[in-house]
């Protein structure tokens, strides 16, 4: 009964997963948040990844690939289960995506134990940058501290003296605010952690107003960012207070926010307006296919596929030796052209890259982002010293 079920399941999955591909040589397990308020982030990563695959004719490194897509629902328990299923049952050759930091942390043990090559396109938690680093786990998005550190440096450079900090209450939120403080030397008026998924920030915004800071830094990914910025704008604070943010005002939220986000400054490793040939090609292709502007999550997904393309090519299409495959992925960073400009892997597999600052400006009746600087260039993460990998 069990064997029949397996074959049945594999058949169905193969039918659904590979349209028109005769034989799957490399199996990719893609996980991310595909439902709920943050679903667009997972969808963007997937769409970015699949766009790269499509541009290469449905192949990576010359090999036909099957992509098994799974939804972690932003729940660590679910994420851990689907990772185990992809590793133990579907026997994927590589895991991509891996979801938010909290979901990744729950799945860490099965990933590391199995040695399967895993490429994160969303998270970058500090414990894995440091002591828990692993040779088979790679990060092509960012380390959680990069963007906030850039924001902190920018705030410091612009002469802000008293800043109010806010983030949701989970690992990434704490990482972000701690990183901001690493480069911002002024006074932190208050550090507020709100509930993950909270929708109404009226109480916190009133608190913010009463504390009279001269700047605000927030980290509110996805739907939380939309709510927060909208409510800040409704409270009349947008013109009065510089609002710095990471992962709050970006490609996924700006289409919804429109003018409400005018004036906000976001720091990130990528934006659609970055001027380099790879990026121009990527943005044009993404907009043509999906009818929306890509976000940095899509860029990370796209780059993951590009990276894999080079790595699988290096392995001549045979990815069964997990250790060698991991080494190939690491080496591939030197040879692939990222849409974000310069990119390299640090010894702990975290990216060494530029972090830019972008401001939202009104362009007639529309809003656009404008690059206003590069606070941190070729910046490694702050925790790599703790990682024993070479």
């Amino acid at each position, binding site marked *: 009964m069990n064997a029949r079920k397996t074959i049945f399941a594999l058949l169905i999955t193969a039918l659904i997963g590979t349209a028109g591909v005769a034989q799957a040589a490399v199996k990719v397990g893609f996980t991310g948040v595909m*439902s709920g308020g943050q679903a667009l982030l997972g969808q963007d990563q997937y769409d970015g990844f699949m766009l790269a695959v499509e541009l290469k004719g449905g192949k990576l490194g010359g090999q036909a690939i099957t992509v098994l897509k799974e939804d972690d629902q932003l729940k660590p328990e679910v994420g851990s289960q689907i990772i185990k299923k992809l590793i133990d049952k579907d026997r994927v050759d590589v895991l991509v995506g891996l979801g938010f930091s909290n979901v990744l942390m729950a799945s860490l043990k099965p990933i590391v134990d199995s040695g399967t090559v895993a490429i994160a396109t969303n998270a970058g938690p500090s414990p894995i940058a440091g002591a828990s680093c692993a040779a088979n786990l790679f990060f092509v998005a960012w380390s959680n501290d990069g963007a906030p550190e850039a924001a902190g440096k920018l705030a410091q450079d612009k002469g802000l003296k008293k800043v109010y900090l806010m983030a949701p209450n989970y690992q990434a939120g704490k990482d972000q605010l701690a990183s901001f403080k690493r480069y911002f030397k002024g006074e932190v008026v208050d550090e507020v*952690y709100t509930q993950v998924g909270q929708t109404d920030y*009226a109480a916190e915004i009133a608190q913010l*107003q009463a504390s009279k800071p001269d700047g605000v830094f927030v980290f509110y990914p*996805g*739907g939380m960012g939309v709510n927060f910025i909208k409510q800040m704008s409704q409270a009349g604070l947008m013109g009065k207070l510089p609002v710095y943010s990471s992962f709050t005002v970006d490609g996924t939220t700006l289409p919804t926010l429109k003018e409400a986000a005018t004036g906000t400054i976001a720091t990130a490793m990528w934006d659609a307006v970055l001027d380099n040939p790879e990026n121009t090609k990527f943005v044009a292709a993404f907009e043509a296919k999906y009818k929306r502007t890509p976000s940095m999550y899509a860029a990370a997904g796209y780059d993951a596929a590009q990276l894999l393309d080079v790595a699988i090519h290096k392995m001549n299409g045979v990815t069964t030796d997990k250790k060698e495959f991991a080494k190939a992925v690491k080496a591939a960073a030197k040879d692939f052209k990222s849409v974000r400009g310069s990119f390299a892997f640090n010894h702990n597999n975290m990216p060494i890259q530029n972090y830019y600052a972008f401001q939202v400006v009104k362009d007639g009746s529309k809003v656009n982002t404008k690059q206003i600087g590069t606070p941190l260039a070729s910046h490694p993460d702050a925790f790599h010293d703790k990682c024993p990998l070479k």
Partner: protein
Amino acid sequence: MFWNLFIPQLLNGLQLGVLLFLLAAGLTLVFGIMSFVNLAHGSLYMLGAYFAASAYAATDSFALAVIAAVGGCVVLGFVLEQVAIVRLYRRDHLDHVLATFGLVLFFNEIARVIWGPQPYSLPVPAMLDGAIDFMGISYPAYRFAILAVGLLVAAAATWLMQGTRLGMLIRAGSVNPEMVGALGVNIKMLNGLLFALGAGLAGLAGVMAAPILSVQVGMGDPVLITTLVVIVIGGIGSVSGAFYAALIVGVVDTIGRSFLPMLLRELFSRDVANAAGPALASMLVYILMAVVLAIRPQGLFPAGGR
């Protein structure tokens, strides 16, 4: 400085309370008269917001969005009642919980299929955009509007309940449904109407909340729980109870979330306060409900008087 913070927080609490009232009014009536536990009420709120978002995207008119939300939910509520709910009146609460639980899961997924995973937005109507400054504080004009609309609905509800024949039937029905039916009133039509009315109010809450919060799948779930707490505290079947309880819950929740951590920080070390503060603040409303249930299980303002 304290008043600078307290007044806006109080207003926030009242505004939250008024939104909760819109949801609680329909829910408590349905429960009081038909004795039907409707967990899918939060989904009606969510769908109201989605109807509004779609209507706005198509027509650029906030007024039309409101009509779409309320009208759409009234129709949906009526259809739902006739198709599914009516079969469950004679059953016990467990079946109600089960069926509406299934509906919640269904609506969440259908919303994702129809509208997609990304959050939608409804901008604040132009004339309400901006803040009103008074007493040295500036408070969003739109939230004042929500307060005003909520109070208007409360007044209208009072007029309906106390001053019209329909209201009299509803009040009688919440005390003794069988008798009302025996007296020759078309209780089926009354029930359908009531359910649709409740759904319409939920839709109104949805369209009013949409400009503040992003419209997304599952936005009804946390609101539903708080609404259930409100009707239990207020007293099942009592609209006036729902009103007072909603305001109490809204204010306690908001003031608690903002001042409790501050208070704890005065008494304990910062680490303890930062850890315990948010937890206690979130639990405050439930503790309140548990206390009310322990002391006065029929609710603070039960239907039918003391």
